[in-house]
């Protein structure tokens, strides 16, 4: 990294905060993909996923 690019890189992009928020939202499993939620004994949530069926796809097992 050159001195010039280092100086430039210190300034965050104006859209960076919006991008980070969008990435964080995309990380979570969307509600329409969830079939059921079970709460385990230690309090963590076990999420059962809905199967997706698309014509042309074959099941592996």
């Amino acid at each position, binding site marked *: 990294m050159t001195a010039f690019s280092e100086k430039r890189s210190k300034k965050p992009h104006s859209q960076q905060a919006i991008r980070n928020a969008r990435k964080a939202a995309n990380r979570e499993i969307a509600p329409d993909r969830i079939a059921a939620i*079970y709460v385990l004994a230690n309090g963590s949530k076990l999420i*059962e996923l809905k*199967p997706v069926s698309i014509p042309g796809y074959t099941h592996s097992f």
Partner: protein
Amino acid sequence: MFNAVLPYRFVQRNRNFTGGRESWSFEDIYKFFIHSPDSRRKYLVEVHAYADHLYTVDFYAKVQGVNRYRLRTNQYAAGKLGATVLDVIARIIRTDPRACFGFIAAAMLDETSDVCTRRFQLYTKMLELKVDPARYKVETLEETSTIFVMPVALANQPGSLQRIIDRYDRIFRETF
């Protein structure tokens, strides 16, 4: 996507040589290669079998280093890789129809948290598509990026879900 299975080969079955540190009964190793225009990489799939039809499946590109599960190979062949690993799993199911599988989706090197990692997002999408819902269920824990695939009949038994998750919790603790 996830339909192109690469040719793979069974390498060997190992006895448990950890002296009781890990509780698996045997380990099967498979290998295959992924070719891209400028590289040829060897991939290994390690299947560990535990008591009560529990299995874990680990796969990685063969590299020297500690971060083999977290590396990106930049071969852009996740579809072929996923399809081949799914075929290995299907092969295990043909020999043991009551098999349950547990996976940990490792974080990328630039990820600082194990919550809902990028690999976790890919693997869950892949399994949603490729697992027959009449026979298997896909259960996930977002906090640890852990995925479980288990037969429907077993998952519907009262108490069995909690028991299997507890067993896998102990297994992952002794391995990672």
